[in-house]
């Protein structure tokens, strides 16, 4: 059972009155992450909504030492910092518990532009947590397609809908043989909290990806952020799982979909609630387009179910 809401700590690392849009899934997620990490941590950010949300100098909306780095370099910069703090500790220049070094990066900075440095850091098994808050597009620059954008989705660079399926980034990270990988989303804060606490206590490279439904990019109503996150999970469009040393286990409610105990909700409702999909579902090819979206989801469920059976 995931930690209940009432048991989550009081700690607030995301400060009120920051620069994020109302209803922002990224700040919502980061708030829960903050409760798990506490204040003894160092945060790295690549250009993204979460940088814009930090607010204006001399004020800062996050209660950590924050370092803004270039798009391509989250992996390498976090590696440098994690080695530096370890050496400072060795030389006695840093007292007490080592701070958690973590990157807070969008899907653009993870799936695409930062992939190489992240892959290298994972292969070195450097001691850090890489968080990808995945709003399935380059939102901060006005919603362009990324490797995380699902097929059939409108962005300003896919005006007739993206033609390719998204990649399974969490699985790619797991295949680097790192000790911990997890997926989460904002509707399930207890699940997210537990995964971050777990990651914090494992040495080496950890990767946590959080689906972050962004009302602006996905074109739904602002108050529905959490609803959309829940629908993504119930339809199987987003699977909650974690892998410790390469052994995959699924979390509630995705575990029921994987085991076949519960059928995923048909994707129609999830898709029709979002302008990024439904604006392209008005023509005669609508049925075929929905079938394609459903097909990608079904394939991913079937694939992950089989992949989880490999436990060697």
């Amino acid at each position, binding site marked *: 059972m995931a930690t209940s809401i*009432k048991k989550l700590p009081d700690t607030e690392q995301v400060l009120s*009155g*920051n620069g994020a849009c109302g209803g922002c899934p990224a700040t*919502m997620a980061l708030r829960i992450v903050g409760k798990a990490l506490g204040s003894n941590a160092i945060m790295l950010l690549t250009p993204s909504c979460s940088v814009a949300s930090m607010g*204006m100098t*001399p004020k800062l909306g996050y209660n950590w030492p924050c370092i803004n780095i270039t798009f391509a370099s989250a992996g390498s910069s976090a590696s440098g910092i994690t080695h530096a703090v370890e050496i400072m500790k060795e030389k006695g220049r840093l007292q007490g518990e080592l701070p958690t070094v973590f990157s807070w990066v969008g899907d653009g900075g993870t799936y695409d532009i930062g992939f190489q440095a992240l892959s290298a850091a994972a292969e070195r098994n450097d001691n850090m947590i890489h968080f990808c808050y995945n709003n399935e597009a380059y939102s901060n620059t006005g919603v362009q397609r990324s490797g995380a954008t699902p097929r059939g989705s409108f962005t300003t660079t896919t005006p007739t809908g993206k033609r390719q399926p998204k990649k399974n980034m969490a699985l790619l990270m797991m295949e680097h043989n790192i000790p911990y990988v997890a997926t989460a989303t904002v509707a399930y804060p207890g699940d997210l909290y537990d995964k971050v606490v777990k990651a914090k206590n494992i040495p080496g490279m950890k990767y946590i990806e959080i689906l972050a439904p962004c009302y602006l990019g996905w074109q739904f109503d602002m108050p529905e952020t959490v609803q959309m996150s829940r629908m993504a999970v119930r339809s199987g469009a987003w699977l909650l799982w974690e892998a410790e040393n390469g052994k995959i286990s699924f979390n509630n409610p995705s575990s029921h979909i994987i085991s076949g105990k519960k059928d995923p909700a048909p994707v129609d409702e999830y898709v029709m609630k979002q302008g990024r999909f439904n604006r392209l579902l008005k023509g005669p090819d609508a049925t075929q387009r929905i079938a394609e979206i459903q097909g990608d989801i079904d394939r991913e469920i079937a694939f992950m179910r089989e992949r989880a059976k490999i436990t060697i």
Partner: protein
Amino acid sequence: MQSVTKTYRPISWPMKGSGGDTGSWRTHRPVVDHQICNKCQFCWVYCPEAVIDRKEIIIDYTYCKGCGVCAVECPTGAITMVKEDE
């Protein structure tokens, strides 16, 4: 040996209101009916702004952006979004 490390000072410090008084962004204000509220804290956990007091369920309107997430997630219907100019 002389230290080669230069001390860099941060240019920003953690403070509320880094985006200004974001309460002025609101078009609608969440109003809690404390007769109905069962203190489940759902609104508190989902509020992206951390403006809800989890014990008293009181909202800090200086920074609440009026997103309405709390009202949608409240299982008892205790939160109503009221138009700001009314």
